[in-house]
């Protein structure tokens, strides 16, 4: 010991003399930094997914407690492939198996998004901000930060798997099967962690990497939906084998675990093998590319601006249109499903008294009401479109905040543009976005419903159901704009939290039997009733609240300082 210390004049020089120990030490530091930075964010993701597992298991127990009810549900689903797209792969009528059938693909979808965001946050986003360069200049080897991200993500997925398993167990499902179900969620998460890391290597911006990675997750969900829909029925008529597209998707592999029934661990090897191959590619790419560079080079921009880019409105549209397009496509697809599913559901269950449970469940989605099944179902699905429209509006207001914090609002405010105009132009883009998402959904629902054999009045039902969501999305736009003006730094957390809580309470509130007073905190539960006894009271109120909030925001924006950029 003493001889080595005399050889080293300073501790700083000493570190280069022991590279192996240095690498392990830096890995530990980087891993701790990641765990610390993400602790709240990951906690919220994992708790949400675990609680969704818990609540859905409990609600299915309540709604389909009897074996005959569950059998009806599964037979209905198998008879109508669109239901399979939205749910999963039927594995018999046991309570636990039905729960997994109903909720697994959503849990895996959420796990996928959690992982791709995590991967990009610690790789491409770090490079983009220049922090990766700072870390890369320390004794941390070039690949060490990526190794730390992989370990961090895998740890998060193990915790996620255990939390999900606990959620299922807490609702009374068998322990071993719940562990298998948890592993199916965590395994999909690890597969998507690798997807996120790979796209972070390929794309040169974190926005691009996040966008493509999210698209891959949704695509994986859709692929398995198609595969499940074209699957073949076996045995007693309540079990299915997936079609080939399911085998192209990490979420599809998760379904093959068949928890509570076959409890098969082998698909985990597929998920992990897929992740290992992708991560090997990640290290290969990272070893050959420069820090900060992407594999896909960034396209050059325009030399001159288009004539439309001539003010805050043009700018807001230019900045937001890709987002608006994305949510509008989401609305369109949901509309197609709603229309196709609506006619199926109504013809199957509307007049069958033994399916009262299912009718009740549909009637309690969103604002509810009583009347023809098709219209009721359309209005229920439209509350999901309402969530999409509100999300698009929330993102527009969040963009205002990003403009302010990023400093580009300062450049804008130093020109002869009044603050009020700047604010209202962004709000106008939010309004346009809401209308586009709702219109796309209504049109698609009408077309797909008539194509499925419904009367032309389905168009009226679809447009009425979409119109009912307009004041809901508007109240998010208005109130969040006021938050941005009065409490700027709260904009982002309040925006997403209010949307998440509102959507959850509005859509699942009745299913999980939340008390009425709590439900009415969600704008989605107060949406106008357009089926049966029409009641627009909630709509008028929300419309009024939104207008007052916007007027207050416009009045108060003149009074506040702008953030120091």
């Amino acid at each position, binding site marked *: 010991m003493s001889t080595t210390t005399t050889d080293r004049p300073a501790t700083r020089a000493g570190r280069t003399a022991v590279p192996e120990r240095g690498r392990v030490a830096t890995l530990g530091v980087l891993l701790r930094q990641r765990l610390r930075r993400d602790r709240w964010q990951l906690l919220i993701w994992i708790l949400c997914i675990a609680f969704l597992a818990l609540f859905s298991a409990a609600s299915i127990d309540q709604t389909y407690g009897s074996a005959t009810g569950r059998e009806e549900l599964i037979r209905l689903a198998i008879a109508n492939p669109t239901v399979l797209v939205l749910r999963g792969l039927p594995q018999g009528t046991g309570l636990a198996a039905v729960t997994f059938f109903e909720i697994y693909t959503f849990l895996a979808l959420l796990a996928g998004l959690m992982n791709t965001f995590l991967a990009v946050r610690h790789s491409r986003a770090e490079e983009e901000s220049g922090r990766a360069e700072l870390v890369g200049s320390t004794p941390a080897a070039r690949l060490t930060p990526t190794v730390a991200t992989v370990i961090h993500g895998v740890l998060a997925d193990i915790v996620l798997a255990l939390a999900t398993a606990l959620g299922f167990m807490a609702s009374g499902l068998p322990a071993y099967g719940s562990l298998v179900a948890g592993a199916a969620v965590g395994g999909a998460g690890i597969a998507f962690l690798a997807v996120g890391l790979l796209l972070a290597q390929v794309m040169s911006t974190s926005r691009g990497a996040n966008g493509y990675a999210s698209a891959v997750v949704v695509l994986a969900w859709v692929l398995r939906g198609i595969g499940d829909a074209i699957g073949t029925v076996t045995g007693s008529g309540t079990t299915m084998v997936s079609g080939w597209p399911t085998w192209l998707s990490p979420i599809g592999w998760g379904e093959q675990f068949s928890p509570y029934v076959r409890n098969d661990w082998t698909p985990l090897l597929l998920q992990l093998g897929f992740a290992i191959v992708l991560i090997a590619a990640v290290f290969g790419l990272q070893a050959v590319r420069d820090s900060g560079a992407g594999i896909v080079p960034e396209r050059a*921009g325009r*030399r*001159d601006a288009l004539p439309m*880019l001539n003010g805050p409105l043009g*700018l807001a549209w*230019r900045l937001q249109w890709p987002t608006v397009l994305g949510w509008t496509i989401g609305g369109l697809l949901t509309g197609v499903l709603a229309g196709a599913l609506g006619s199926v559901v109504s013809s199957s269950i509307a007049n069958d008294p033994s399916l009262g449970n299912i009718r009740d469940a549909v009637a309690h989605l969103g604002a509810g009401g009583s009347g023809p099944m098709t219209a009721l179902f359309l209005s229920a699905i439209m509350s999901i479109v309402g969530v999409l429209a509100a999300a698009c509006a929330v993102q527009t207001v969040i963009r205002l905040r990003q403009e302010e914090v990023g400093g580009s609002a300062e*450049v804008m405010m*130093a020109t002869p543009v*009044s603050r009020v105009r700047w604010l209202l132009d962004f709000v106008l883009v939010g309004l346009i976005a809401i209308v586009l998402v709702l219109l796309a959904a209504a049109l698609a629902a009408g077309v797909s419903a008539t194509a499925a054999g419904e009367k032309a009045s389905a168009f009226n039902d679809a447009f009425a159901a979409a119109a009912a969501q307009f004041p809901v999305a508007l109240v998010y736009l208005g109130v969040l704009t006021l938050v941005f003006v009065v409490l700027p730094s709260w904009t982002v957390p309040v925006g997403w939290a209010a949307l998440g809580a509102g959507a959850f309470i509005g859509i699942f509130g009745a299913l999980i039997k939340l008390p009425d007073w709590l439900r009415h905190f969600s704008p989605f539960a107060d949406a106008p009733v357009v089926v049966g006894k029409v009641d627009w009271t909630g709509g008028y109120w929300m419309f009024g609240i939104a207008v007052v909030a916007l007027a207050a925001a416009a009045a108060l924006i003149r009074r506040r300082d702008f953030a120091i950029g």
Partner: protein
Amino acid sequence: MTTVIEASGLEKRFGRVRALDGLDLTVTEGEVHGFLGPNGAGKSTTIRVLLGLARSNGGTARVFGSDPWRDAVALHRRIAYVPGDVSLWPNLSGGEAIDLLARLRGGTADKAAYAERKKRLIEVFQLDPTKKGRAYSKGNRQKVALVAAFATPADLYILDEPTSGLDPLMEATFNAEIARISRDGATVLLSSHILSEVEQLCDRVSIIREGKTVESGTLDELRHLTRTEISFAADGMTDEQLARIPDAHDLRTDNGRVKFTADSDGLPPVLAALADLNVKSLTVAPPSLEELFLRHYGDELAGVAELEAEAKGR
């Protein structure tokens, strides 16, 4: 002379921090006014108040005779601004950002003339306008903001440390542009901590410290407050000989050279005495802003030196 900017007793608090603490600033029409101070002295805060981006907690500010907070929009028609830390829209190209800002300021009414100005400026600043905002380096973001500011004529240019990311060649281009707009009669407020730049460009200077103005005037006026540095070869000069130099401050002998400072407006008797002594290899360094600056911030530097000495002693 018309006053373009008139601020007196300006105060701005952020929580308990007093960013501005009774700041005065007067800029008259047609002058290039240097606004000097170290980081954190309150330069950017003053500029944000003058632009109506922040509201002062006390004192008055007038730009072209109007209240910058109330009449922000009308004033901004006459002002071009380059922020200290330029942020661009990440997915807009530099060319798009320049066009957007020019259109907002109404500079594109004559399309051909604007296109001509933009083309020339992009050339002299050697800017690639097709890159996306996020891909630019700090210096290039600054160039985008400078091109946008110079491409539309303004009555008042407010430039917050505009050259901090530019290389020396670009600084020369920048200086030429300032000379051009100044010839056209525009008023310029140039905040900086680069003294040579201010000495080269500015007619008048205000020096601020901790949110207060500590010195203001033309460079000549300020030079009177400073001392000239004089040195010559020691060559066996005796102390008795040196004592004959009148009003010599800080006299010392260093590496074979005698050095001292003298009041800048009392040089003739000093020079006469030096001639009598028949000194060799005489150098007379003109007073620089640097010296003035150091005089106002000298105690801070001394504090830093003490800290350093302490750290070494440990």
